[in-house]
């Protein structure tokens, strides 16, 4: 392991590394889902784990998401730390009942007697030319649900640190993994068991003219847009929200207080996407700091198309740059 940590790894490998670390150090951690065992998951997130930890710790379930969610809640309530996998974002809907009615409520309902320290890992989002229902950006559904944490890393290091934190957190965490960037680039991720905080945004780039707020796979396009804007002399601050719920709005507010402009970028449909919450908070708390209307660059209010058209649906560098320039028309 010490060896491995010297090598640069991808986001998906960082997920595997975090799972392996925590399983090694905490016997109560078990992984369950469809094909997570010998197959190592359809994205290879659990590759090798069953071989290392055995089929009592890495459990292939029957093919039913209700089953996975309900068993996970039960395991968590009874002293285990289950890390369940939804094979794709589009298959997690049957899990919602157990997540909203139970996982998010056990502590509240029983005044702390029963709790639900579970993690649900969900490969998330579009752009990989996959079949229908394999490309959903449905995080906003969960951000209105009290009692949950909603987390989405956007780099190998943040994937490692945030997943460790999610597993250790005593409350339920929905952990979205942007599958489009699973293998986008490699980064050195020390396998040191260091978790990251679950309630701060990451400022990925400092800037003074505009604040670009995003999360997940769009961090890529947003950073590229900031780079392009820099070439034109525009200084963009880039914030990766990463922990959507509970939200660290302080970081965003402070940035906007400095820049006076905000462009929010996300892949989900615009209306009632989580970008709405950030824009709403700006309308409440940053009105007098803003010199330009807030802009949202998002998926359209339609289903992400099958793959021949999907890139026309997703936010692009061009769209981000254009929106940013619109905010710069104001001063």
């Amino acid at each position, binding site marked *: 392991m010490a060896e491995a940590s010297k090598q640069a790894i991808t986001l998906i490998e960082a997920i595997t590394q975090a799972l392996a670390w925590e399983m090694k150090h905490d016997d109560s951690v*078990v992984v369950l889902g469809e094909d997570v065992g010998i197959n190592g998951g359809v994205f290879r997130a659990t590759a090798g784990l069953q071989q290392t930890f055995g089929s*009592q*710790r890495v459990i292939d*379930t*029957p093919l*039913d998401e*209700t*089953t996975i*969610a*309900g*068993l*996970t*809640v*039960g*395991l*968590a*309530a*009874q*002293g*285990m730390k289950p890390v369940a996998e939804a094979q794709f974002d589009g298959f997690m809907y049957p899990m919602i*009942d*157990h997540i909203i*009615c*139970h996982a998010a409520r056990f*502590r*509240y*309902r*029983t*005044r*702390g*007697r*029963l*709790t639900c320290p579970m993690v649900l890992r969900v490969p998330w989002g579009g752009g990989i030319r996959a079949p229908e229902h394999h490309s959903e950006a449905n995080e906003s559904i969960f951000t209105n649900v*009290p*009692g949950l944490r909603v987390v989405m890393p956007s780099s190998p290091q943040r994937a490692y640190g945030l997943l460790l934190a999610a597993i250790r*957190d*005593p*409350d339920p965490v929905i952990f979205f993994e942007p599958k489009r960037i699973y293998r986008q680039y490699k980064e050195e991720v020390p396998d040191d068991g260091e978790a990251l905080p679950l*309630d701060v945004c990451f400022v990925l780039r400092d800037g003074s003219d505009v604040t670009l707020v995003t999360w997940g796979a769009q961090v890529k396009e947003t950073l590229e847009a900031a780079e392009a804007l820099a070439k034109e002399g525009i200084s963009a601050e880039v914030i990766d929200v990463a922990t959507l719920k*509970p*939200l*660290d*709005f*302080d970081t965003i507010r402070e940035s906007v207080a400095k820049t006076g402009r905000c462009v929010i970028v996300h892949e989900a449909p615009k209306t009632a996407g989580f970008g709405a919450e950030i824009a709403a908070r700006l309308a409440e708390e940053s009105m007098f700091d803003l010199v330009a209307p807030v802009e949202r660059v998002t998926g359209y209010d339609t289903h992400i198309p099958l793959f021949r058209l999907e890139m026309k649906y997703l936010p692009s560098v061009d769209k981000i740059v254009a929106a940013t320039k619109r905010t710069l028309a104001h001063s």
Partner: protein
Amino acid sequence: MTTVASFEIEYLQYLGPDGQLVRDDLPEFARDGKTVRDLFREMQKVRAFDAKAVALQRTGKLGTYASCLGHEATHIGIGSAMQYDDVFAPSYREYGAQFMRGVKPREVLMYWGGDERGNDFSGPPHDYSWCVPIGTQNLHAAGAALAFKLRGEPRVAVACVGDGGSSKTDTYAAINSAGAFTLPFVQCIINNGWAISVPRNAQTGAKTLAQKGLAGGLECLQVDGNDIIAVRAAMDFAIKRARHGHGGSCIEFVTYRLSDHTTADDARRYRGEEEVKSAWEREPFLRLRTFLTREGLWNPKEEEDWKVECNRLADIEVNAYLETKVQPVEVMFDFLYAELPHDLVTQRADALKWEGR
């Protein structure tokens, strides 16, 4: 054609509605009539409590309440067969089973009285609390059973669901998981004839509800749920199998809901008086009185005294409930996460401000 699988669903009953034994192989525990008498007494305690709870609701001192009238043999039988370390996952009316496990009647009242502290009850801390979304508890019990299996603990998870709830997909998921993982799990299906206004036959084309278990390869059995001896015997059998690693069972207890569905319901809208009248002839107390009286273990005087005692005990609980102060408003925030997230600090303060604090 070749037969590749065959199944039989048996019906278990020891004591007929008239109090006569219908078979002569009484289980060990029942041969000592005193055990049966003790169970009978517990059943009476529940019935006394239940009547008080309904009365409380009628006088505006309790929210909607789900009565357990008629289910006492099933509930006490299930609860009495379990050990403390086992996990119980009730639906919402199995008070009898819960009382056997240490839950206090005042806690039941708190729950239906709109106070979450009822869920932080005196029963085993690992037991689940009442579960309103029908059937979901079955999977939490199966998850518990999976935890026991993974840790090698000789514990059993028992879940209750109704005839209506047997249609719920979660019930199938629990049954199927129990079979797939050979879990120490008992799925009790408490068939009381009705799911609010929908009769048993509208739920499914299956001849018995016990056979739902066949879909997951479980041991299946139908039991007279008004015969406490049969209930207890069936549970003993299923729990023993489970505890010894032989896997799950699906047991249908046939009983009858003598009350309205809840105090918010009016059963006269949808079911005939005749049916209810005839159900009263099969209810679980009648036959036990006959049986125990014949054994010389019960008489009208004893019953009178015990009733007085049951009412006294119930009153203590009712009073304790009525004296419970409302929770302070900040509990909304303080039990949401292990630690209050920074993002909620302002909202919590706002809630206190509106309390003038």
